[in-house]
């Protein structure tokens, strides 16, 4: 068993790793420019609220994305690497990842709404974990056996 289109797999792997490294923000590279104007923050500006209180900090600077988005991108990257291993050693898995993705999106929306309404208060870690679940299941969708 092997990847039929290794170029496509490799392209996606490079892209998602680039997204993850960019999402880490300027702290990783010890950039001196005010973080709100760093290129990493500008790239993600239309995609994430980037509120520092809801983001992890690295080396005294907030990441370019919030903790939930960091979980999504990180989860997809981890899942994509794991996907390559899974598809290399065996056939697709009979796990309903499509339903799992819908479930994880639903839970994230519920968490977002509940926090906004003041029903509960989520944390950096909880938002990261919930985002991770979306990213992982989205990547592993490609291992699902349609039949």
């Amino acid at each position: 068993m092997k990847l039929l289109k290794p170029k496509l797999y490799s392209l996606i792997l490079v892209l998602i790793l680039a997204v993850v490294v960019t999402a880490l923000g300027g702290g990783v590279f010890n950039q001196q420019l005010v973080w709100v104007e760093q290129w990493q923050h500008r790239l993600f500006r239309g995609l994430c609220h980037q509120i520092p209180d809801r983001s992890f900090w690295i080396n005294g600077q907030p990441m370019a994305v919030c903790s939930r988005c960091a979980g999504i991108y990180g989860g997809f990257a981890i899942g994509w690497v794991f996907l390559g291993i899974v598809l290399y050693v065996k056939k697709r898995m009979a796990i309903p990842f499509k339903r799992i993705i819908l479930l994880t999106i639903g839970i994230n929306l519920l968490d977002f709404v509940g926090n906004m309404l003041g029903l509960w208060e989520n944390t950096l870690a909880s938002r990261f974990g919930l985002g991770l679940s979306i990213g992982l299941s989205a990547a592993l969708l490609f291992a699902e056996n349609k039949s």
Partner: protein
Amino acid sequence: MNQVNNQEHNYWPSVGLAGAVFGMLLFVISLFGSYAAINSEPTGSYFSPYQIIWTLACFVGAFGGLFAVWHYVQHEGQGGVTLGKGALIGFFAGAAVTIVNVLLSEVWQGIDPEMNERLVESTIRNLEEMDLPGDQKQMMIDSAAEGMREDQNIFAQIFWSVPMYGILNLLTGMIGAKSFSSREPEDTVE
């Protein structure tokens, strides 16, 4: 082994439709967030609580690729599309979403030409309330104002938005190819 039909059907109508629909949704949500931020009280933070609204904009904008692939499969793809084509359609849909959003923003500039400057002033008011040393606060104010004014340039908006929206929609386009094909898109497994 089943093969997905890879005849060259035109995917541009699907890309265009996704760009129009999701670009307009993205514009409306961002516009709502901008006016909410302008009319909110200074918070002492660079960020307004209403920026949470822009999270919805991201969520909406990222699904243009998924929608484009669904539309393509329904109308052109004869039941299936390969992962590679799904990725391509998704990327183009992401670019189209960005361009439509930027063009609508430019049109809105003609309707309310002072909106962007009021947004800059709102951000500056927030920063002035921050508990920071004077010179650091002034540096943040100057950087933020300069950056926001630079981002009003249409080419800057496209330059900064297309890469990330393109990549996100490329991924959701692939998810769409996997999800909406009635047969297995035999691109990844021999």
